[in-house]
C-alpha cells in the first residue's frame, strides 16, 4: 500500500455549483486527499441514506486543500450528493486507483480524449503534463454543445481544446474518434469516457501502434480491491491482471483485473472487449 493514501477523511462541501442542463461542480475541502491526488484517481463518498456502497467519482481539479467533482445526477446517490448543503461534511476515501503514466520522452505529443464526463479524469493529467513542460492537445466530445462540460477549468493550461459534437452544434461535427482520424497521429493517447468511445479509441490506437491508456468505469462495491465486483477482461500476461493459472475447463481466453485497484487506468493493448 502506497504511502500517499488512501485516506479516510471527512470532506467539507465548500461550494456547489449547478451547471445547466444537468451537471454539478462541487468543491470539497480535504487536505490529505487534495495533496495526494494524481491523474485519474477517484474518491469514494459515503452519502447519508441507506446506500450500501460508496459513490465513486473522479477527482476533477485540485486547488490548495480542496478538490472538485464534476458529475451528473444519474440515480439516487448522485442525486443525494447534489442535494447536500454547503458546509456539510462527507466521509471520503481517497485518492484511490492508479494514474496515467506520462511519456518518458519530453517531446512526445500527447492527445487527451474525453467523452462527456470523461473530462473529469483529464484536469489532473493536463496539470501533470503542463508541470512536466510537455505539449498536449485536448479533444472534448459530447452529443451536443450544451452537454460540453469542463472547458472552463481545462483552459488554464493553455493546451488547445478541440471540441467535437455529434450534431455539430459546436466545433467539429462528429465523434472524437472521427476527429482523431482526421488529425496527424499523436505520440501518446489518453482517454476517458463512455465504453463505446473507449473501445473505438483503443482500436484506433492499436491499429496505429500508438501507446494509449484509458481510464475505465464499472459498477463498484468496495472501491478498494477486496470484493472483486468490478473486474474487466484483460489480455493474459497483462501485469495488472490476476495472473492466475487457468482451470482446464475455462473457455475464456482472458484474465481479469479490478478496475478500482488494478486500474482505473489500463493500456489499450491490454484490454479485451467482449461482444
Amino acid at each position, binding site marked *: 500500500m502506497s504511502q500517499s493514501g488512501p485516506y479516510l477523511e471527512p470532506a467539507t462541501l465548500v461550494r456547489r455549483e449547478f451547471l445547466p442542463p444537468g451537471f454539478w461542480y462541487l468543491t470539497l475541502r480535504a487536505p490529505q486527499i487534495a495533496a495526494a491526488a494524481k491523474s485519474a484517481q477517484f474518491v469514494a463518498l459515503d452519502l447519508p441514506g441507506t446506500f450500501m456502497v460508496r459513490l465513486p467519482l473522479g477527482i476533477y481539479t485540485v486547488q490548495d486543500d480542496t478538490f472538485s467533482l464534476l458529475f451528473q445526477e444519474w440515480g439516487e446517490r448522485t442525486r443525494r450528493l447534489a442535494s447536500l448543503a454547503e458546509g456539510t461534511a462527507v466521509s471520503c*476515501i481517497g485518492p484511490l486507483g492508479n494514474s496515467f503514466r506520462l511519456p518518458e520522452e519530453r517531446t512526445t505529443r500527447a492527445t487527451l480524449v474525453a467523452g462527456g464526463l470523461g473530462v473529469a479524469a483529464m484536469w489532473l493529467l493536463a496539470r501533470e503534463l503542463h508541470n512536466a513542460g510537455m505539449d498536449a492537445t485536448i479533444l472534448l466530445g459530447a452529443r451536443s454543445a450544451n452537454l460540453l462540460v469542463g472547458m472552463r477549468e481545462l483552459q488554464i493550461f493553455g493546451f488547445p481544446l478541440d471540441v467535437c459534437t455529434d450534431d455539430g452544434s459546436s466545433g467539429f461535427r462528429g465523434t472524437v474518434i472521427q476527429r482523431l482520424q482526421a488529425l496527424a497521429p499523436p505520440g501518446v493517447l489518453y482517454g476517458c469516457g463512455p465504453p463505446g468511445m473507449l473501445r473505438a479509441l483503443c482500436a484506433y490506437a492499436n491499429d496505429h501502434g500508438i501507446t494509449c491508456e484509458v481510464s475505465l468505469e464499472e459498477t463498484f462495491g468496495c472501491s478498494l480491491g477486496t470484493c472483486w465486483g468490478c473486474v474487466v477482461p484483460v489480455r493474459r500476461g497483462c501485469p495488472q491482471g490476476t495472473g492466475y*493459472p487457468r482451470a482446464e475447463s475455462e473457455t475464456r481466453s482472458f484474465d481479469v483485473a479490478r478496475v478500482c485497484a488494478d486500474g482505473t487506468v489500463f493500456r489499450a493493448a491490454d484490454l479485451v472487449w467482449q461482444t
Partner: protein
Amino acid sequence: MADVTVPQAAPAPDLSVRIGSATLRAPVIAASGCYNKGDEFGRLTDVGRYGAITLKSITRYPRLGNDMPRLAMTPAGLLNAIGLQGPGLDHFLHHVAPALQDVPTAVIASAAGFSVDEFVTVAAALDGLPNVVAIELDVSCPNVEREGRCFAADAASLAQVVAAVKQRVRLPVIPKLMPNVTDIRPIARAAQDAGADAISLINAVRGLVIDVERAQPVLANAAGGLTGPAIRPIAVHAVWEAAQVVTIPIIGMGGIAEGTDALEFLFAGATAVAIGTANFRRPDVHLRVLEAIEREMFRRGCRRVGELTGLANPGFAGPRPAAGL
C-alpha cells in the same frame, strides 16, 4: 507500610472468545469475500483489533468468476454474483499463503468445493498455514451452479462434507450455512453431529434484480446473493433458531452495520459476529462495533463477552457462562 486502601482499577473486559480450540482476541470478524488479507484496509482501520479475518473462499482449481456486472444495489441491500473468483489452491499456497504471517490478527481460511474430495483437499492444505486458526467451509455459496443442491441445502450431504474434512484437519472446522433452506435447525444439528466445531450463518440470500429499462437481469449471472441490512432480520432469526438446537459456537452475520446490530446477533445466541458488506461503506465498522460491545458489557456489568450470548433467547442451548466471574 501504612494500611492504605488503593482504589482498584476495574479489570479490563475480556473480549476473547473460543471457537473450538482457537481463541480469538475479540468477537468481531471480517466476513469471507469482503476483505482479501486485509491489506487494502490497512490505513483505514486497525485490523489488529479484529478477532479474525476470514479469507475469500478458496477452490481447488482457479476460477475466473462470473461476467460483469457482478453487483447491484437494492433497498438496504447489495446483490452480488462474483462467482467464487480465485487463483485456485496451488497458486494460493505458493503466492498468497506465505504473506499470511503478516496479518496482524488471526486468520480463518475458507474452503469451497464442488465435491467432498475437493473440500477435503483444500481444507487439508489450509490446515497449518501461518496465522490460520480455523477453517470455514463455504458449503453455501449461492452463486455457483452445482448439479442438484448445494451441500448446505440438506443435512446428509452437509454431514458428509463436515465429517470428511474433520478426519483430515486438526484446526477447528466451521461450516457456513445458507439461509435458503426450509428449516435451518436440522442442518445446524447435522453439522454439530458430524463434528463441526462451530457454525457460521448466514451466507447471502438468493435474490434477483431486473433492469426494467433493458428488460434483463442486472447481474450477468441473473441471480445473486443478497447481503446487507435488508437481510438482518432473516439472519438474526436463523441464529435464534440454530442456537436452540446446537451447543457449539455460532458465528452470526448478515447485515451488521453498527453496534446494536451485532448485539442482536449475540443476544440471539451467537458467540461472535462477522461483518461483510458494511465494510464497503464504513471501513472502520469493526472498531465501532467492538466499542459498542464493550459499552454494552460495561452497562450490563459483564466481565466476559460470552455473558451476552443468548441473553434474549430463552431456548438458547449453548453453554451459559456464569455471569460476573
